[in-house]
């Protein structure tokens, strides 16, 4: 047994450069693999799949200020297959077109859904401009539902400002569904579409609201404005739509001006365009804009609707499938030079709307003229109906409360079935 060698390294750095080259290569490879993985995970999950156009931008309860957006040029390529990162590179009209189709638009509540208390959330909608807020690559952009840009600003949202933010790739983006409330210059976040590059489209509202509540607070987005955070973000109080929740949403004071109530089905995914799984309802107590106004801000004496002219002369709503409100004869079309696809404005005359078995049978329409160029879509059926009801027999808050009560009673009612014991 020979003595053991006890030499130690002398005047030498412990690591050879060759070893370092190997290690740096491995590090680079590991980083590249991570990037590839991230890329795959995001690309795979964040394509915002677009349904064929079915949304109704007029569904927004706010009176449409007849802002004339720039004329849209001929569509060059269909932007519908882009993800938001690619879409954010779109310019002008292309960008507007794309973003206009990304919002989930509530239908108007024309009857009360079953299971309101079990399956639905309710919250008071802030009055203001509905918009998408996208933060990525060190900047934040808000876009109105017609696609035009509202603000470009630094924010505390993930990658929303050019600050040293160690968490995650600068490429990843976050998309919030917000309402910008002018009076306090605050973005009220009503939904979350994408968080740090991960799409929440396919998640239930229940999960999205949970995520919204737990994640946003970590970012500092609720902090008061500062150099790297120009606008404050805020959440709206969301309630389970039971009796107390509904009363709270309806009567509790909030820091913003209310514009109706929004109802979200807990199990519904974030679906772009019109959906019956999100509903808007309003009355004079919770909104200044129950009945539509015209371009001068006046409530017209007769309800006005915008319908789309089909090639067979039918006048239809924007819904898929269309609901037919009436028909123009060919003669009139020729004389007035109207053609298929035109959006036409009508007044509902004294004959009103007639129904048979709950379906629209006849509408007494009076032609007013072509609609404003800014309009992209006809009115939806639910909007026409809500407006009609608002003028004749509105759905009252008591009806909603009664519906909740009756469903509770039904649950509490002892079962009629009696098991036979002989």
């Amino acid at each position, binding site marked *: *047994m020979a*003595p*053991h060698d*006890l*030499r*130690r390294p*002398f*005047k030498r*750095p412990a690591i*050879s*450069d*060759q070893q370092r*080259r*190997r290690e*740096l*290569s*491995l590090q*680079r*490879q590991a980083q*590249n*693999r991570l990037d*590839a*993985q991230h890329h*795959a*995970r995001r690309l*795979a*999950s964040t394509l915002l799949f677009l349904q064929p156009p079915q949304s109704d931008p007029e569904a927004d309860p706010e009176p449409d200020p007849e802002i004339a957006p720039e004329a849209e040029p001929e569509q060059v390529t269909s932007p519908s297959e882009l993800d938001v990162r690619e879409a954010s590179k779109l310019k002008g009209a292309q960008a507007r077109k794309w973003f206009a189709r990304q919002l989930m638009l509530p239908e108007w509540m024309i009857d009360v859904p079953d299971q309101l208390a079990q399956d639905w959330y309710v919250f008071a909608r802030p009055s203001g401009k509905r918009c998408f807020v996208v933060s990525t690559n060190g900047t934040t952009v808000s876009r109105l539902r017609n696609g035009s840009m509202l603000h470009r600003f630094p924010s505390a949202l993930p990658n929303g400002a050019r600050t040293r933010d*160690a*968490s*995650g790739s600068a490429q990843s983006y976050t998309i919030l569904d917000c309402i910008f409330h002018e009076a306090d210059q605050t973005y009220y976040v009503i939904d979350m579409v994408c*968080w*740090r590059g*991960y*799409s*929440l489209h*396919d*998640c*239930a509202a229940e*999960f999205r609201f949970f*995520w919204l509540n737990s994640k946003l607070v970590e970012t500092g987005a609720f902090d008061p404005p500062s150099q790297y955070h120009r606008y404050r973000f805020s959440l709206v109080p969301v309630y389970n739509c039971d009796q107390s929740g509904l009363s709270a949403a309806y009567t509790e004071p909030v820091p913003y001006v209310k514009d109706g109530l929004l109802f979200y089905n807990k*199990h519904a*995914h974030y679906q772009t365009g019109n959906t019956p799984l999100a509903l808007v309802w309003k009355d004079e107590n919770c909104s200044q804009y129950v009945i539509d106004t015209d371009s001068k801000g006046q409530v017209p004496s007769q309800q006005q609707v915008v319908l789309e002219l089909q090639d067979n002369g039918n006048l239809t709503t924007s819904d898929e499938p269309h609901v037919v409100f009436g028909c123009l004869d060919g003669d009139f079309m020729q004389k007035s030079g109207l053609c298929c696809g035109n959006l036409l404005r009508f007044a509902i005359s004294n004959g009103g709307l007639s129904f048979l078995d709950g379906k629209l049978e006849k509408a007494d329409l009076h032609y007013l003229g072509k609609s404003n160029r800014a309009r992209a879509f006809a009115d939806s059926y639910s909007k026409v109906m809500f407006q009609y009801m608002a003028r004749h027999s509105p759905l009252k808050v008591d009806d909603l409360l009664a519906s909740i009560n009756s469903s509770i009673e039904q649950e509490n009612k002892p079962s009629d079935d009696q098991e036979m014991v002989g």
Partner: protein
Amino acid sequence: MAMEVTQILLNAQSIDGTVRKHAEDSLKQFQEQNLPSFFLSLSGELANDDKPVESRKLAGLILKNALDAKEQARKYELVQRWVSLDAAVKAQIKTCLLQTLSAPAPDARSTASQVIAKVAGIELPQKQWPELIGSLLSNIHQVPANVKQATLETLGYLCEEVSPNCVDQDHVNKILTAVVQGMNASEGNSDVRLAATRALYNALGFAQANFSNDMERDYIMRVVCEATLSTELKIRQAAFECLVSISSTYYEKLAPYIQDIFNITAKAVKEDEEPVALQAIEFWSSICDEEIDILEDYGDDFTGDSGIPCFYFIKQALPALVPLLLETLLKQEEDQDQDEGAWNIAMAGGTCLGLVARTVGDDIVPLVMPFIEENITKPDWRHREAATYAFGSILEGPSPDKLTPIVNVALTFMLSALTRDPNTHVKDTTAWTLGRIFEFLHGSTTDAPIITQANCQQIITVLLQSMKDVPNVAEKACGALYFLAQGYEEGAPSSPLTPFFQEIVQALLTATHREDAGESRLRTAAYETLNEVVRCSTDETAPMVLQLVPVIMMELHQTLEGQKLSSDEREKQSEVQGLLCGCLQVIIQKLGSSEPTKYVFMQYADQVMGLFLRVFACRSATVHEEAMLAIGALAYAAGPDFAKYMPEFYKYLEMGLQNFEEYQVCAVTVGVVGDICRALEDKILPYCDGIMTQLLKNLSSNQLHRSVKPPIFSCFGDIALAIGENFEKYLMYAMPMLQSAAELSAHTSGADDDMMEYTNSLRNGILEAYSGIFQGFKNSTKTQLLIPYAPHILQFLDSIYMEKDMDDLVMKTAVGVLGDLADTLGSNAGSLIQQSLSSKEFLNECLSSDDHLIKESAEWAKLAISRAISV
């Protein structure tokens, strides 16, 4: 059954090559034809006192080599071969071996000792040969000293071969008793005492229980300490070796003895012969190692009750220990800097002083400064060198606050010594000390920079000047420049080195061209420094880095022009090519990391690739590792354009994957496959059959170094991600391999730290493979092909979660796989996922992790799962 082999064994040692060759062939043939008879013949030869000692020794040596091998697979084979021998044959061989321990010839005894230990190494873990230890111990009481000596030696070898848990405590006690008695001063025969002392060195690992018993420990320590005072140098040396071993194995038991040990070691350092003095210094170095480890653990997480407490032996010994070590520094040998293998008391003492500084920090500074001040200007070079070395040694450990004022004063002196000192040895140490200053006290993190605009120019001028000095000094100057460059953080917009960049690069290239650049690894140091200068360069100097590309390419081209090289020249050519490819790799990686420079670099890509291919062609059977690494960097920079090189490059890629022997080459090539996958994406498809076949072959081979397996699994993931659903045809081969590896790596009970680390890297590779495969199939029509594998994968995640021994990386990858599985399989796996533990507890644990990468992956998984189960 045994045959007469004496003559063949003697012939096998003949000086006549033909005779020797013939004998070796006969032995080989004999072994192949009849192994039992071969073994019996050899053991019979070894045991026979009438035979010549040369043939006996060789017989034993052949036996020993037939029982063990360094290489794991071969070792396993040999063990199996022995185990399957007929029991009667084995018994006869063992009898011969034990009998040889009483032989009068010392060489025969010693050889037999080693063979016995090898057999024991195989049999004791299998609970065979139970009578061995008993019969050895009975030998101890035999009168002839040679038997006693041989038996103690056998016990020593046995303890080296066998793991402590294969020997029961009763036997351990008896072995230790016999060994320690043999070491005792009362043992008159010094051969016996030496054998016993050396045996104890190996037996210390068995003595856990005995070291916990105060009486027994006191006794062992007393005997060891007494042995350090023996009149025999070899016994003193062996006894100090025991102390060194005790210092690390039983650190926490040393307190009662440390004062005595200090006295003994101090005396040895001052007065004893060098081999003994070196061991005595090593004792303190080893204590430093222990305390540095303990204090590092304290720094991480001082819970007060975990692990071994620090006894601060070094802090207590400091006032006496430091002067002792400083004194050794004056005992330098002439020319020790030119001798690669040199190790003497001055080197050991200086190294120990450096460790002491790391252990105690600031406290060492006032104890060393007077020595430096007193000696640094003395006329005798030994004093100046020792003072400089002492200064260099204490630069790591003490706080920058403590050192910076001293360094600011010393820097000017050092720079002037490096230029003007007449002694090479002093200049060598001075340049090394400057390197240490830059390594530990210069960088963006320090508050008061020691390098300023005022002295930067002078420092660089002096270092570049020294690169023209003798090779060992020039090499140290390169090293200093390496750390100087490293201190200027990468990524900063501008660097103080920018004005000197051209000059530095020129000086380094000139150094590589020196006639004597092969000495003192100067050429290597110069290229490595060039690499670091490139790595730390900024945008300002990017054009100059670009200019370096054709220069290095030209150099590489020149190495390819040589005709008919001798084997020495060939070796040098290969080394220089390695350095140049390494340099190109660093340059490519640097330029490839930003778009504008990458774009300009790509104009050279064809030429660079052409050169790499020619470097490969220089060799017949192996590929050049450095060229392979450089190609990985090139693939990353080139992206999809790399496809045009594939037809020519592919054969070398395959060659690299086949290179089991040089496993580093194999591992590097596997990494390059990953680079190419990411660069080419689905354009790699035509090459995948070949690559996958080779990778699968590698995994099934027991010759493959285990460290290559994890990267191969990760590489499956890279390939799957690149080619998507085309991975389908490999599923039936890859999945079972992953599955069985997963089962093996799921449980780690009783594994040591090394094994734990390996297991985690294996898990990470397996999980990366799963991630890549799932993501590759995402949005394909064939996702249902993966459904059958989901239960097992979820089970694997659950079981590694249950083990609670994942490292952070595995945790991140594992939770990512959970997300990928949910993402790709969607509602198909919804209920499976909901049943798994991973989707609840594990996921929640990851969601609340402090590590943001884990958290990010967990958030992804949570989203993917919520989508999968809500659809």
